[in-house]
């Protein structure tokens, strides 16, 4: 119910909410136009979309039966043929089927780890930048401490201690990659905090939660977004490395576990290139795609970086 004294919104004039949404849409469109000008970023986007489609359509492309060792139809390490386009692995399964289904696990772990890393990193970065007193410095110290923990040794220990499962791998990657995000968000928060509109909000009596949630967070979000794509790249690489070291989920096939079994059966020395080359190439393609997108996004958001 509108109070009678209040004038209804005139046609053609927009409410503040509509206005802010319109402005956000415009900013997004401008950003997209800018992004489209980056050839490498667009190439990365194309590759990423292709891989995501393959991962989503895995059941349509290859039957899940192909993952079962007992239902394998091929011979041991058969070279590529009309029946098995990319040959077979040591148990006679089609490498192409493993590759298609493996993309799901590799991408899933990458995304899951990124979400964990982003949530922790953004939260700690925001708070350590916003609060100037002892709370802020403790959080900052905490970030610094985590930053110096060497990733692989810690990941090895955590994976050993926590056990080997899909979620644990993502968790391990997440809790070892958040500090760089936190530092980035912190420096952004520090600069945004000094801007006049936040001073104005403070004067008008905005609480801390309102200042952080409505003013600072929306402003650091684009940076978080750009950082996210770079973190996905790092997370997929980490998943591959951890699985290769035998720390992956033993019940699921990912590109990393494929490379692990290729290494254990000595695919390099027997010349079974179809077993160790395709998974590696997929990892390189996906990681490169996310890296290219991330770099292009960074340039779109930070004009100082243009031309790099």
């Amino acid at each position, binding site marked *: 119910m509108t109070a009678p004294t209040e004038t209804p919104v005139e046609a053609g004039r927009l409410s503040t909410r509509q206005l802010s949404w319109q402005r956000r849409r415009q900013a997004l469109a401008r950003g997209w136009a800018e992004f489209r000008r980056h050839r490498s970023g667009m190439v990365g986007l194309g590759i990423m979309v292709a891989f995501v489609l393959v991962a989503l359509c895995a059941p349509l492309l290859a039957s899940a039966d192909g993952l079962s060792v007992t239902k394998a139809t091929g011979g041991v390490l058969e070279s590529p043929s009309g029946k098995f386009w990319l040959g077979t692995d040591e148990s006679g399964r089609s490498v192409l089927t493993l590759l298609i289904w493996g993309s799901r696990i590799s991408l899933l772990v990458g995304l899951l780890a990124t979400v964990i890393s982003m949530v922790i990193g953004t939260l700690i970065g925001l708070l350590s930048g916003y609060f100037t007193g002892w709370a802020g410095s403790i959080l900052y*110290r905490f970030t*610094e*401490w985590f*930053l*110096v*923990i*060497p*990733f*692989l*040794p*810690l*990941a*090895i*220990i*955590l994976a*050993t*201690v*926590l056990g080997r499962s899909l979620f644990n791998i993502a968790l391990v990657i997440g809790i070892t*990659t958040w*500090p*760089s995000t936190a*530092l*980035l968000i912190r420096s952004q928060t*520090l600069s945004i905090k000094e801007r006049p509109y936040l001073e104005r909000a403070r004067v008008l009596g905005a609480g801390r939660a309102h200042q952080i949630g409505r003013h600072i967070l929306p402003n650091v979000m684009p940076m978080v977004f750009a950082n996210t794509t770079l*973190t996905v*790249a*790092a997370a997929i*690489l*980490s998943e*591959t*490395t951890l699985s*290769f*070291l*035998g*720390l992956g989920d033993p019940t699921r096939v990912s590109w990393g576990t494929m*490379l692990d079994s*290729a*290494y254990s059966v000595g695919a*390099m*020395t027997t*010349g079974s*290139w179809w077993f*160790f*080359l395709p998974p*590696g190439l997929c*990892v*390189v393609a996906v*990681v*490169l795609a996310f*890296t*290219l997108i991330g770099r292009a996004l960074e340039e779109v958001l930070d004009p100082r970086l243009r*031309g*790099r």
Partner: protein
Amino acid sequence: MSMVVAGEAPATEVTPRSGGRGKSYPRYVGGKVLGSLGSLAFMLVVNFFLFRVLPGDPARTLGRGRFTTPEQLAEFNRTHGLDQPLVEQFFTFLRNTFTGDLGVSIKYNVPVSELMLDRMWPTLLLVGTSTILSTVIGIWMGIHQAWKRDSFLDRSTTGTALTLYSMPEWWLGLVLIAVFSVGIGPIPGIFPTGGLDSGAVGQSAIEHGLDVAWHLVLPVFTLTLAYLAEYSLIMRASVLDELGEDYLTTARAKGLRDIQVRNNHAVRNAMLPATTVIALNLGFVVSGAITIETVFSIPGLGLLSTEALQTPDYWVLQGTFLFASGAVIFANLAANLLYGLLDPRVRS
């Protein structure tokens, strides 16, 4: 790549305040040393609790399936001091760590510190050589890429660097083994597939040195390519940052030759961030070597920790983790001190 993530954001606070009350260098050093000591303390706490608290009952995790009787379990608890209260265990752990007592390896049955000292040299040789090579080549490449920006050379080498950067370095090692050690088709392999030496008896010192060098060619090449990608990208970005600066225009207006402007003006300033990142990365010696040593079976600290994973040899894992994190803290401190020395602005 793992180390890249951390390496990209050096823990240096670069917030030049207006007013510019720069601290004196000794005060800056003092602050940084204190900070590092804090990190070290945190590291020790993490190290202690990771192995004792997280899994619930350490004896069960540590001796997975090896104890059949309660007596054996009690014996294990006593020898590892696990029957003491947690606080007491922590102080024992601190005392032992500072006196170099890192426990006894379950697999080899020798003190972990001795084992690690033995295995340190191959790692230092491998990582040291690769770091020196990749630093020199990477910086040189970065400068040339940035100076001739958008040229064909720049585009192709930057593309290559980005691809290498997106590649698990151990996979590159596997491919190189397949090509150069095993050989493709009629072309025979020329390099050894792994190991640090051929184990031949009666070699003279020089022969042995050459043998080791021969075995290290592929691993060093692999690691150099991996680091090279990162260093050249960083150097390229730092030089590009300087390109638009006024002092370069001034230098050109003075009539200096292009090469003088580049080497004496732009590169000098661009070296700052690159130096820090390289100093920081030196700390990731162990982490960097883990996968490469595994793939090429080089008996260094990295291979030691992946082997310990199979047993699992907890004290060895703890020891290598302690060494790895200590190295990072030390390198971090060195990077900060170096930066403070080179650029007085960060001391504020």
